[in-house]
């Protein structure tokens, strides 16, 4: 049917457009829903409406038929408010391209059929537009005539066209004038309606009826305006227009929703955070996180009401379907679901759904329990679509569908656009809500068969264990019960089909792998933030970035249990860890740890999943060999290197004692028992036996071919090798002479703790190596040999017997007697930092590892061979670490730390295990070792006081600084005092913590600009004489660090007992602060000023400016400009 509406009637227009909208909507819905064409209902509805408002619009336009494909007829429940269309026999309007034959005012020209001599002007020409329209006739709506009226009923003469209307058209060239005259002349007969109306010359209108044409009048041509050259085709629309009207009091339906329902939030997200996030879109007028009524657990659903619809809209637009990663607080990669929910209906529905699920879960549980009581029957492997409860094992997750609650499961059958109800809500109500829903939303809602389940499913299905505790009970089983009978494709939403736990594991591994990669690429230290599970989830990357905003963050990464923050500069990590460790991130206290960058070679495995048999064997062999290599390495380091070290220590002590007492051998002899004890303490015997066993079994099982080369061990001493060894020895001896001199000098130095007998060697491990040789080769070569022999004697005594018995038995681990003789050589080779024994070259005279000291006995040899037989390049990689560790930690001669008694631990030694020292060593590795001093130092700072006392220069330096400042144009003194006064009140935020330079250090907890005062060095002000006295007292008491700071000739500030943080500032050769002595109110004060900008977390240092002295204090500041010593 065609409604012809008067385009001029505004009221009608409005109503009509509403109607159209409404109908369109209904049609669409039904079209989507039923997808059925009902052929027996040929009624088509097309609405035309002339939207132009201009009354002067004269150009006839063809009807604007709806371009949409003819929708299926609505069922009868779609009543147009206007006259009900009677089922008239009249044919439906033809498709748009063929003009309808029905008489319609705009298409009147179509019926003009008359010979027309003049060429017809194109319709766009002024000719056409200059005709004056006749008032059209309407079918008024109120009296509903039979529809559409038959042609005969049409009023006569309505098929007309105003060709010329003087009121609106201009007749410049007088063409119409002439035409009018012509027409008038032709119309004399007067049969038909007068074509010319109006009186007065020039005031007539010219009309054409029924296409009549007189001679000379341009013939009317039928022209489809759409085919005219200038016609612009409207873009094709594939959806109905949604027409929105501003909501006003007259509007029908509910007001535009200002509330949104947010789902799929992780229940662990703190509500505050949710609120914060969503308040970004507008002011929240009500915030209603949903909790489980029984357990009080958050459901991960929040109902938020904004103040305006726009805010709600922006919220929906911006957050719906977003994956906020973890930060947002949902379980991994969960998509937020944000929908309008103006009246809270959806919320209600969702809640109800959850309730039901829980109920079902409970019911199921109960049933299972019941079943569990029943003797279990063999489980049905796959439950049939309708399975019998009895066939179900309690463990099975598939649960039989119980008829009782089955109806409630018929969600698919429900009308799709009523998403969250169980059919309770009547369609009209939902329809009211529907128009405001976005088209996209609608579509998705329509495409999903039963949205409730799918919308909520992701919360539980993938993370059932973690995210929503309350759901775990009911939901999964519910899922299986509804989905089990159906093919998996029925699960409509892709969201619901999430990767399972297994894939998660892989993902985790993958992420951690990428994290490691990225960190390795970054190359600098990074900060690791360890969090507990909940906190981990709720913290977003932005949070982390904000947390580290003061530092140059390069990238922020995370894996399943920690955040990793990499920085653009090398020291940021440390500083950040220092500054931020005491703060909280997202209401969680975090533990920050600065970690060195991972090596690239970390995780290579894990991609392989399927192994062939050979591969497994290969892999197993590889790992075993690797292990054995490590064992060998450990063996070597423990037995050879460590033993030597220990010996060395003992020798050193002996030497010290000797030179101290100037008595020589007696002392040495005294020392010897201790040394022996130490050796005995190592007691290799027992482990060896065990290891032999292990090795044997290993050989039998795995490495059969590798055993064989063991047999023909040639015991010939490889002379070449030994010669080589001699060469370095000679050179070392020369070194040693120098060093021993040094030692002589140093020995008499007074010890602080005179009572403590046991002295540790006071050098760094690095220095030990050359020393060792020195000692061994120098003055007591025989002593070593002696001690060795003692050990050997025992061994060989046993061996002599054993050898003969064992050899015939082809036991692999007998020690050739010759091996013992050469043991005294051991240290020369094995002490090299990476004792990688060269693989024995088989062809010509293989050097015997035993004699080179690589191996102590056959067992070692065996392992060595085992390791060497495999030429993998990774050998050095594997071998290195143990050496380091062995060097780092001393072994107590007496066996344990407690029985060892007190000994001084040098700073360098500490750096091996005290965390913050280790940091330094990784940072400035290249610098630290080279500056290691050769002298034994009682305390790295014990002489600081001494030096200070002699630091006559300080005042001078200060003056120099002042001069420098003056030369820069500053009025130094005045400014300094001003600064001081100012900064008395405003203290810099500083913090003390363990320092890589020395025990404690002071760190900046805020940025300090250049020239600002950092802190005053506060302490008791005492006279120099008192200071001297105190210093001695402190020294005697063993206060390693001295805090005496000389102000001038006769005053010293002693911060040992009374003072402030300033005393903790360490020395650096490349400091960031300077100490200045300023006079305020006649009182001299020591004030530390920033020499340069100090970054957050930097350690504050200044140069102590000790005078050059004979006994050096090593500097461990680690800076590039380090002079090596404080004085």
């Amino acid at each position: 049917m065609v409604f012809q509406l008067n385009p001029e009637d505004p009221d009608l227009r409005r109503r009509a457009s509403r109607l159209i909208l409404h109908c369109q909507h209904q049609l669409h819905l039904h079209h989507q829903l039923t997808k059925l064409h009902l052929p027996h209902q040929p009624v088509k509805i097309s609405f035309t409406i002339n939207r132009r408002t201009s009354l002067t619009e004269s150009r006839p336009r063809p009807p604007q038929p709806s371009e949409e494909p003819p929708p299926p007829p609505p069922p009868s429940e779609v009543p147009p408010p206007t006259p009900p269309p009677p089922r008239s026999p009249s044919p439906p309007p033809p498709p748009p391209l063929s003009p309808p034959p029905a008489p319609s005012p705009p298409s009147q020209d179509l019926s003009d059929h008359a010979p027309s001599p003049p060429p017809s002007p194109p319709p766009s020409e002024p000719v056409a537009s200059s005709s004056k329209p006749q008032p059209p006739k309407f079918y008024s709506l109120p009296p509903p005539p039979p529809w559409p009226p038959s042609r005969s009923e049409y009023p006569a003469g309505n098929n007309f066209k105003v060709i010329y209307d003087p009121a609106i058209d201009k007749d410049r060239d007088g063409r119409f004038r002439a035409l009018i005259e012509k027409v008038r002349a032709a119309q004399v007969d007067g049969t038909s309606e007068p074509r010319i109306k109006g009186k007065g010359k020039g005031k007539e209108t010219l009309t054409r009826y029924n296409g009549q044409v007189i001679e000379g009048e341009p013939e009317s041509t039928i022209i489809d305006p759409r085919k005219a050259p200038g016609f612009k085709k409207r873009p094709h629309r594939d959806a109905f227009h949604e027409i929105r009207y501003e909501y006003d009091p007259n509007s029908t339906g509910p007001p535009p929703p200002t509330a949104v329902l947010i789902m799929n939030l992780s229940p662990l997200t703190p509500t505050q955070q949710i609120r914060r996030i969503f308040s970004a879109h507008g002011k929240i007028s009500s915030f209603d996180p949903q909790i489980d009524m029984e357990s009080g657990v958050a459901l991960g659903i929040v109902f938020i009401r904004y103040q305006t619809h726009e805010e709600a809209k922006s919220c929906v637009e911006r957050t719906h379907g977003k994956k906020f990663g973890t930060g947002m607080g949902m379980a991994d990669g969960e998509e937020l679901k944000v929908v309008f929910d103006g009246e809270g209906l959806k919320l209600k529905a969702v809640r109800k759904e959850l309730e039901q699920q829980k109920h079902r879960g409970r019911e199921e549980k109960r049933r299972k329990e019941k079943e569990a009581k029943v003797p279990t029957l063999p489980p049905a492997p796959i439950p049939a679509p309708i399975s019998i409860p009895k066939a179900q094992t309690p463990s099975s997750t598939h649960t039989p569908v119980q008829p009782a609650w089955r109806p409630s499961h018929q969600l698919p059958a429900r009308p799709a656009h009523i998403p969250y109800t169980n059919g309770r809500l009547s369609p009209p109500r939902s329809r009211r809500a529907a128009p405001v829903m976005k088209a996209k939303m609608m579509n998705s809602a329509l495409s999903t068969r039963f949205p409730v389940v799918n919308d909520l499913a992701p919360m539980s299905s993938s993370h059932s264990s973690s995210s929503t505790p309350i759901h775990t009970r009911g939901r999964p089983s519910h899922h299986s019960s509804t989905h089990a009978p159906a093919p998996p494709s029925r699960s409509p939403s892709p969201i619901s089909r999430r990767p399972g736990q297994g894939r998660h594991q892989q993902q985790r591994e993958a992420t951690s792998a990428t994290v490691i990669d990225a960190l390795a690429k970054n190359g600098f230290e990074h900060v690791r933030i360890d969090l507990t599970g909940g906190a981990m989830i709720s913290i977003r990357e932005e949070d982390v970035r904000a947390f580290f905003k003061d530092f140059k963050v390069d990238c922020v990464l995370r894996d399943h249990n920690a955040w990793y923050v990499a920085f653009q500069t090398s020291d940021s990590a440390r500083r950040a860890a220092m500054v931020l460790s005491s703060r909280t991130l997202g209401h969680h206290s975090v533990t920050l740890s600065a970690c060195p960058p991972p090596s690239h070679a970390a995780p290579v495995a894990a991609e392989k999943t399927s192994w062939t048999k050979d591969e497994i064997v290969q892999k197993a062999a590889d790992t075993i060999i690797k292990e054995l290599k490590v064992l060998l390495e450990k063996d070597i380091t423990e037995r050879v290197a460590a033993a030597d070290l220990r010996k060395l220590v003992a020798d050193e002590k002996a030497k010290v004692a000797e030179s101290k007492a100037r008595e020589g051998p007696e002392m040495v002899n005294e020392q010897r028992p201790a040394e022996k004890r130490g050796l005995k303490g190592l007691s290799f015997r027992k482990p060896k036996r065990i290891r032999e066993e292990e090795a044997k079994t290993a050989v039998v099982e795995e490495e059969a071919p590798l055993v064989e080369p063991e047999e023909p061990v040639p015991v010939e001493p490889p002379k070449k090798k030994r010669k080589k060894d001699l060469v370095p020895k000679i050179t070392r001896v020369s070194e040693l002479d120098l060093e021993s001199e040094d030692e002589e000098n140093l020995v008499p130095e007074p010890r602080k703790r005179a009572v403590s007998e046991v002295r540790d060697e006071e050098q760094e491990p690095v220095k030990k190596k050359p020393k060792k040789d020195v000692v061994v080769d120098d003055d007591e070569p025989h002593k070593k040999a002696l001690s060795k022999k003692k050990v050997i004697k025992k061994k060989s005594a046993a061996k002599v017997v054993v050898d003969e018995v064992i050899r015939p038995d082809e036991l692999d681990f007998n020690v050739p007697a010759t091996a013992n003789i050469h043991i005294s050589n051991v240290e020369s080779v094995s002490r090299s930092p990476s004792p990688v024994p060269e693989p024995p070259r088989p062809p010509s005279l293989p050097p015997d590892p035993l004699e080179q000291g690589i191996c102590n006995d056959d067992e070692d040899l065996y392992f060595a061979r085992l390791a060497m037989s495999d030429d993998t390049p990774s050998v050095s990689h594997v071998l290195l670490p143990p050496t380091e560790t062995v060097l780092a930690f001393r072994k107590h001669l007496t066996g344990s730390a407690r029985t060892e008694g007190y000994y001084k631990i040098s700073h360098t030694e500490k750096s091996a295990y005290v965390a913050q020292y280790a940091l330094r060593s990784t940072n400035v590795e290249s610098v630290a070792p080279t500056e290691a001093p050769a002298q034994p130092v009682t305390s790295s700072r014990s002489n600081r006081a001494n030096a200070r006392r002699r630091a006559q220069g300080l005042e001078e330096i200060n003056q120099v600084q002042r001069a420098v400042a003056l030369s820069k144009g500053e009025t130094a003194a005045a400014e300094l005092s001003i600064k001081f006064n100012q900064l008395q009140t405003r203290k810099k935020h500083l913090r003390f913590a363990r320092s890589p330079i020395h025990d404690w250090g002071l760190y900046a907890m805020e940025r300090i600009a250049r020239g600002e005062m950092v802190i005053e060095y506060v302490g008791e002000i005492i006279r120099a004489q008192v200071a001297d006295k105190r210093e001695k007292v402190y020294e005697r008491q063993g206060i390693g660090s001295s805090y005496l700071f000389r102000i001038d000739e006769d005053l010293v500030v002693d911060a040992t007992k009374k003072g402030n943080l300033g005393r903790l500032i360490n020395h650096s050769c490349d400091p960031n602060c300077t100490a200045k002595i300023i006079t305020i109110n006649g009182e001299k004060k020591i004030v530390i000023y920033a020499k340069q900008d100090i970054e957050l977390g930097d350690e504050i240092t200044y140069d102590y400016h000790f005078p050059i002295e004979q006994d050096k204090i090593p500097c461990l500041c680690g800076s590039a400009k380090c002079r090596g010593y404080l004085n």
Partner: protein
Amino acid sequence: MTTEDNYSMNGPNGDTLQTDAVVSNESSDEGVEETTSSHHLPNGRMQSTPVPDAPTPKTDKSRPQYAVKYILSGHTMAISSLKFSPDGTMLASSAADKLVKLWDAYSGEILRTFEGHTEGVNDIAWSNDGELLASASDDKSIILWSLETNSAVKTLLGHTNFVFCVNFNPRSNLMVTGGYDETVRVWDVARGKSLKVLPAHSDPVTAVSFNHDGTLIVSCAMDGLIRIWDADSGQCLKTIVDDDNPICSHVKFSPNSKFILSATQDSTIRLWDYQKTRCVKTYTGHTNRTYCLFTCFSTTRGSYVVSGSEDAKIYIWDLQSREVLQVLEGHRDAVLAIATHPVRNIVASASMEKDLTIRLWYDE
């Protein structure tokens, strides 16, 4: 035997029976201040102890009469620590030979040997229920031994250097350790996880201990500082430094947790009122210059302070009068480890390399 036996045991000693009974009965005389008559008991109760007897116990007859009863040998290297089990039936010993041994405290028989450490053991501690034994070792680990299963239950790793000292809290759900890595670590015993790392000192930590209700931790180190920590928060509440800053070898709370007994390597034992940061008693006479000797309270007979010495003797002081009441001689090397029996008048002591014996001294 129980404390009541002291009556009969002490009865023959003569007229001091009455006094002894008073002192030994509830192991009461814990108070330190000589002037006050009210004393805190180990269990926190206040008890008014008759002071008038105070002078009389100082007579010869009131002195402890400890004598060697058993000499236990088994360790092959210097013995580092001795601890009686909470019920007093067993004595645990650890040594540099990597072993932990259990002895019967009353018969001197060896019961068990725990092997597992790869380096010498520095210290051992009993859990309060006597079910667990923790041993701290040079191999940087702490091993928890179960007395029930006779095996290692957990190995706690975390210290980056030798672990030197270990102690349980009274509930035995926490453990505190200190070591050469200069940190104090608090462990969750059940999970075997490190709860806190206190950057406590700038030298090896030599002793750590909980107070009687587990709210405080005291630690001391070779840097001479004694620090008191809040066990919950890990905050340092107090630092006690002696003027001379001597190396601190041992520290422990008094049984009523009002005082701290600290031994320093200037051959002095001090009793501190840590609330007032005041040294209230000083005990001298022994030698302690090198080793971290243990110091103990003995409350079973009278209130004594017992310590080993590097001159191979054992010194027993009167808690109040600071007088050396008895010197036990017999060891042939420095006496590092010492332990006092919780209920009976037994002192266990152990010596270093030249001796390698554990001696049980009875006063009965």
